[in-house]
């Protein structure tokens, strides 16, 4: 037992998004399995970001009963500039690819759906990014948009998915602009359209955009959803429906830890970098 602890190391990943910060703590054995010890999600909700990061990080360590000086490497990803205690930073695409392949081995593509952007990438079995495509500089159909809509409807974010699944007549979203579409939502509510139908309509319009993104990178295998919206069962189903509708040869997959893919990927890459650095030091 003791020897196992000695040749394995602990690494932490902090994925700073624009609406939530995700934390992961992993243990990586020298030539053995990688395992996740703790995961934590802290929504920002207009609080001071530096504080949110610090508190979330401490909560993650506490959950696993680990002290900060036991962590060999803390890696940031996303908008990581404010993680001032990090050892290094990894680009978002590589961390999501790494995390997705770790959680869902066998995938050939990843779609990372965050608050502002969506990124589709084709990856190989070692999580190398082969090609990618991002949404443009406009927030139409972004996660932030969905979050605003949920707030307007007085729905907790985690209820959005289940409600969307209950829809009977999804209402097409007419407006393209994320901010004005919010006004459309007010309009829909005033026309008596159910919350389920509104949400499903939004999910379908988002799914349409993501399907296009995936087609543009020639994804044709198992596609993993990661990022903040990965936990949204309504979006997952809508994406499946769109893909079926367009008769594409893709299969969408998700995982209970999908939203942590970036943080997990960062932690795993961090552990890897730590080993490489340690080895070069020994050689030197």
């Amino acid at each position, binding site marked *: 037992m003791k020897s196992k602890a000695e040749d394995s190391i602990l690494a932490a990943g902090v994925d700073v998004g624009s609406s939530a910060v995700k934390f992961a703590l992993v243990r990586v054995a020298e030539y053995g399995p990688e395992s996740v010890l703790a995961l934590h999600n802290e929504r920002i*909700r207009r609080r001071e970001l530096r504080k949110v990061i610090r508190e979330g990080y401490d909560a993650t360590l506490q959950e696993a009963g680990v002290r900060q000086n036991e962590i060999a490497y803390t890696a940031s990803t996303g908008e990581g500039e404010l993680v001032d205690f990090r050892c290094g930073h990894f680009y978002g695409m590589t961390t999501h690819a790494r995390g997705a392949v770790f959680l869902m081995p066998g995938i050939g593509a990843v779609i990372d759906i965050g608050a502002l952007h969506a990124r589709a990438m084709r990856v190989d079995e070692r999580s190398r990014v082969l090609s990618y495509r991002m949404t443009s*500089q*406009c*927030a139409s159909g972004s996660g932030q948009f969905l979050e605003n809509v949920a707030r307007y*409807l007085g729905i907790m974010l985690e209820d959005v998915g289940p409600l969307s699944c209950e829809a009977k007549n999804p209402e097409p979203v007419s407006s393209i*602009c*994320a901010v004005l579409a919010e006004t459309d939502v*007010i309009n829909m509510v005033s026309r008596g359209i159910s919350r389920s139908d509104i949400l499903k309509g939004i999910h379908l319009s988002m799914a349409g955009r993501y399907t296009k993104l995936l087609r543009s990178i020639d994804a044709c295998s198992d596609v993993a959803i990661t990022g903040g919206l990965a936990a949204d069962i309504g979006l997952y189903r809508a994406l499946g429906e769109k893909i079926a509708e367009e008769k594409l040869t893709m299969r969408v997959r998700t995982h209970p830890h999908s939203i942590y893919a970036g943080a997990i990927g960062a932690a795993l890459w961090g552990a890897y970098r730590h080993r490489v650095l340690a080895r070069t030091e020994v050689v030197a």
Partner: protein
Amino acid sequence: MSVEILLGIDLGSTTTKAIALDQTGRILGRGITNTRSNYEVASQIVREEALVQSRFELVRHAMAADPELSGIENRFIGSLVRNFRQQQHLEQLEFLELTLHHCADAPRYAPTRETVKEMLNRICDAMRLRVPSHFSELAVRKSDFFRDLAAADYMQFAEQFSDSKHASFDALCGLFDAAILEVENAAGDGAFERHAGPALERTLATAPADFRAQEARLRSAVESVRSLELRVLGTVGTGYGRQRLPFPKEQIRSEILCHGLGAHAMFAGTRTVLDIGGQDTKAIQVDGTGIVTSFQMNDRCAAGCGRYLGYIADELNLGLHELGRLAQESTCSVKINSTCTVFAGAELRDRLSLGQKRPDILAGLHRAIMLRAMSLLARSGGISDEFTFTGGVARNPAAVSALQGLVHQNYGARTLNISPESIYTGALGAALFALRAADGRNAA
């Protein structure tokens, strides 16, 4: 006794406005509230509000006509209105508290319900204690809407009291979002009858000696207006949500027409109107009688509309009132790279976390919205003298100075008209249409 009233209601995407005119076309009262999903409630609230204000205005008229009271009417009404607002606010707060508890009865809160409810009590108690400071004579309120005032206080206390185990900040926020919707979509009426009495007592109880000397006369001035019947002869609706106003079709006018006429009524020399509303920006050219000759509206994108600034204010947890003032403190405006509103919000956050100053970023955001307006004006036929700027954004000093700079640069000297009541331009135009219709009926 009764007074005859004409109403114009402008149901905008952000705010709903009402104007009450008497039969001579004089403005008696104004009402404004934030638009919510139930348009009927929104228009009912502003209607009620405009009628309440009309009553205050009538009290003022009665006092001005009384030689014993003339001269103190503005101070007296000011104090009366503040006390009235405070009563109204407290009533809504009580309703909010009830609704919050009701929302906390949902099954998801079952494991920690006791703690959550205790927390809600603490938050609401703290909010109640703060109410008088919002309505004191020198108070600078972030916003006039219950929703905004309550949200700012609630969030502050929620963050202060929350603990992540039993009642997290996130859960408390969720409860507020659910409860405020319910509170907002319930319409209350008879506000004047309910609150005028207590407000009068409070005003008199805290009044300076010169008020108390006239107590009997003041009471009878308020009482006489309280028993007055306000007869609404006609109502015309306009604005983004006009199709859903509970009015017959002939009582609906397009917002372009109403803005043209409203701007003409405010400034007779108007030839070009720029209206920046919540979700659309309009550039309108009018002739000497207030009739529209050409216009352009923005495309379906929030960048360039009032919502753009509203979104930014939400991002910063500021009231719309404060945004412009803060931007004016800028010494070095920042150039904003994003066009999209949501991305501009993210850019703002990034820039803040990199240590750039709030006023400088805000100045850049104000300039960005005005650059979009300038291109719309150019497409509608340029800017002729006189130029009238209306809509909610015209109340924002930073937006106005950005516009002035750009107009001077591109068109040279132009007379720029801005009324402090410019947010009511559409409602005023609508009320004038209502007055015309009533006059037409009388003539026939």
